[in-house]
């Protein structure tokens, strides 16, 4: 048996905040193979690869390169060993040409100047060698995403990479571009190079990969030969949770349609459509969940509805009022819509402002809080304290700044602000991300209370067990489109949802159309 190109033994990585990203993971790749690394968000795939590329330090365990122990402290050392990485965000300089990007910091010189002829030649040479055609004179900013990725791959190859790590390379590609990428990867395999392919998409693994390593919660679930393992087995190994949280709730009693989204498109100008012809409705008194692996358009969809993102095509109505083109404030006021964003610290709060300022900032115009523009400090304090009690925010006083609070309590501040006013529609993105169990339970209970009070609720969560417990019905997004609409969650398993999430299965257009209720 040949010596593996890379062998990682017993790798453990604990971040400074105590999160265990990898625990005792074994991983190995050979030359001439395409090796998939699969796992859900937060399973530890990226961390493992970052350690291999020298971007993160290994806490425990060792890395063997061609049988010899190595310490990779930074990317330069990884490159010297022949390891290259193509990040999800391209490390390219847009206004430079392809050749300039390829040669950056390793330019061929002629006296004081860059030897441009040679730079062009070298670029052509390497692109011919691997049969990856590219125009060396083109400006990178003018290239489509697939070509940019090709430049990244060539850049790594030019620097002598034999082992190439690709971090979710197909996430930004169109189907045609994906096919083209796979053709390129085949060529690399023929050149006896190694490709490590991080992905969520089982179909792609089946199509191109030789072996697969599956990670779950930082643990390795084993290494399999791709031809010996079925799609649904992979799905089962990736998804499936032991910890169940039980939520008590009555069956939903949906009434009138509140939110209606029809043929929505978003993402022009960003290289790829993020939301691709999405239609659905949310009725009062129901919780509609959006499941999906992160980055499949959920966030863009929600941001489009609340007016934080411009849409290019489609219609959005809240209670028969078209909200397309309205300002955020108008949507909030006229649509009676609340929104709890995913990124709490960047968007959800002003971290340096006080708790009360954050809780009541959107209600300053109400007569109880201000008269003639002057703030009524007494009422403001009273209301803030009332909300702090009602939403059980752990803090010393309402005039503390939000930075002093824990993640769960910051989320409660956001929730308190958004849910304390009567609302017809509540949109929540990742309700329990990064917060403790107590706060999660509390927030879920609030959501269900509001549903029972006939509010329409739209929730998106990457946590499958959470979204399954919380939702009354469910849409599953894959690649910017709705892959499935599950009207009744009673008869469906996590595995089946996992298959929709990972793009193994997709419902027929007629089934998906049922997400839209006419009324």
């Amino acid at each position: 048996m040949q010596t593996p190109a890379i062998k990682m033994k017993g790798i453990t990585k604990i971040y400074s905040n105590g999160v265990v990203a990898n625990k005792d993971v074994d991983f190995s790749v050979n030359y001439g193979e395409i090796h998939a690394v699969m796992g859900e968000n937060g399973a530890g795939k990226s961390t493992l690869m970052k350690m291999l590329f020298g971007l993160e330090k290994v806490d425990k365990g060792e890395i063997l390169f061609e049988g010899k122990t190595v310490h990779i402290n930074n990317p330069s050392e990884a490159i010297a060993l022949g390891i290259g990485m193509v990040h999800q965000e391209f490390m390219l300089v847009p206004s430079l040409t392809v050749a300039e990007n390829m040669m950056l910091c390793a330019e061929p010189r002629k006296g004081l100047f860059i030897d441009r002829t040679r730079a062009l030649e070298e670029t052509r040479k390497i692109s011919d060698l691997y049969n990856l055609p590219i125009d060396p004179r083109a400006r990178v900013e003018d290239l489509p995403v697939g070509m940019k990725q090709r430049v990244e791959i060539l850049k790594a190859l030019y620097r002598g990479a034999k082992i190439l790590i690709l971090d979710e390379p197909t996430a930004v590609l169109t189907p045609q571009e994906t096919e083209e990428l796979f053709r390129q990867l085949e060529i690399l395999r023929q050149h006896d190079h190694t490709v490590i392919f991080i992905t969520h998409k089982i179909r792609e693994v089946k199509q191109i990969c030789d072996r697969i390593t599956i990670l779950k919660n930082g643990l390795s679930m084993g290494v399999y030969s791709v031809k010996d393992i079925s799609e649904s087995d992979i799905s089962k190994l990736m998804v499936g949770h032991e910890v169940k949280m039980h939520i008590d709730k009555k069956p939903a009693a949906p009434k009138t349609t509140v939110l209606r989204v029809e043929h929505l498109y978003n993402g022009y100008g960003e290289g790829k459509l993020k939301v691709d012809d999405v239609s659905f409705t949310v009725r009062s008194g129901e919780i509609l969940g959006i499941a999906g692996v992160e980055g499949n358009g959920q966030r863009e969809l929600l941001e489009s509805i609340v007016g934080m993102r411009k849409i290019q095509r489609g219609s959005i109505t809240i209670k028969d009022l078209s909200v397309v083109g309205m300002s955020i404030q108008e949507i909030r006021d006229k649509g009676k819509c609340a929104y709890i964003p995913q990124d709490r610290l960047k968007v959800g709060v002003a971290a340096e402002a006080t708790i009360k300022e954050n809780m009541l900032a959107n209600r300053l115009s109400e007569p109880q809080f201000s008269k003639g523009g002057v703030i009524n400090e007494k009422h403001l304090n009273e209301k803030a304290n009332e909300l702090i009690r009602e939403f059980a925010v752990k803090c010393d006083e309402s005039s503390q700044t939000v930075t002093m609070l824990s993640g769960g309590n910051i989320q409660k501040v956001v929730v308190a602000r958004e849910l304390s006013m009567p609302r017809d529609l509540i949109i929540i993105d990742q309700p329990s991300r990064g917060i403790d169990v107590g706060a999660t339970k509390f927030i879920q209970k609030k959501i269900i209370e509001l549903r029972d009070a006939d509010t329409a609720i739209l929730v998106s969560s990457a946590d499958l067990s959470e979204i399954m417990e919380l939702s009354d019905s469910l849409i599953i997004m894959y690649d910017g489109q709705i892959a499935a609409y599950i009207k009744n969650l009673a008869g469906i398993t996590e595995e089946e949802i996992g298959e929709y999430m990972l793009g193994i299965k997709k419902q027929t257009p007629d089934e998906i159309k049922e997400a839209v209720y006419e009324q």
Partner: protein
Amino acid sequence: MELLKNFLTADFFYTIIRVSTPLIFASLSSLVARKGGVTNITIDSTMIMAALTGVLVSAFTKNLGLALICGMLVGVVMGIFMGYFHIMMNTNMILTGVAINTFTNGAAIMILYAFTGDKGSSSMIKSLSVPNANIPIVEHIPFVGQVVSGHNLFTYVAFVLVVVCWFLMYRTPLGLHIRAVGENASAAKSVGENPTRVKLIALGLSGLFASLGGMYMSMGNMQVFIVNMTAGRGFIGVAADAMGRGNPIGAMFSALLFGTANAVANVLQINAFSTDVVMAIPYVASIMGIIIYSVLEQHKKDSRMRREIMEAKQSASIN
């Protein structure tokens, strides 16, 4: 009609080139810094300090070469000093700029006062200047010769510097690294470059170019240092660079455009048009320039998005 005659003279075009010179230096100074990812708002100060240094050193040593070198050195040091505070000490650019501008305003007067006993100008001391030069053959061509020849050596340096700057930015490894760091520092870092080092070099160069503009003011255009003699030219340079869309040639043409505004102002002034309103013309032109640049940038982005929507619609109709 009478007025128009004043514009169509060789003198007028000569003036354009003369008054554009410091703007060209300033715009190149801004360009190098901005390519490295920093909007340099200390160019004006750097010009003042270099102008003063040149005058004082030449007056006391009677050595023109030494004066020029000292002036340039002051420029480089100021650029790096700004970079040190802005990049390494993580000070907000505007605060750094405010501090350095204030420092310069104070220090220039103090130094001038200490050496000449005057707080307004260096007219008490005899300083040297860089001579004017005629271009052989060209000087005899009617009109063209009058316009192009007989300028201060600094002026010719400015135009040569435009070309040098272009080659520096687009043909040398250093220029490539400066552009890479300014646009996407992590990309440069990922291939082993040290962004801080590159930025400091860019700011040093920026200071150097600014210092030449400053010395032109006090040792070329005039033979005396006057407090506030730059009158915001360093900032007009920033505007010219913005309108030039980051290209040295574009920056030069923008600088010439603003220079024209200046020259127009000069002519109108002589013709007893209200001096003050006329003096505002270059600044208005600069503001307009910045706005036009931003609108064009916005337009470029929009049209790219529109193109993608069109393509998407077409492919949708095919399917």
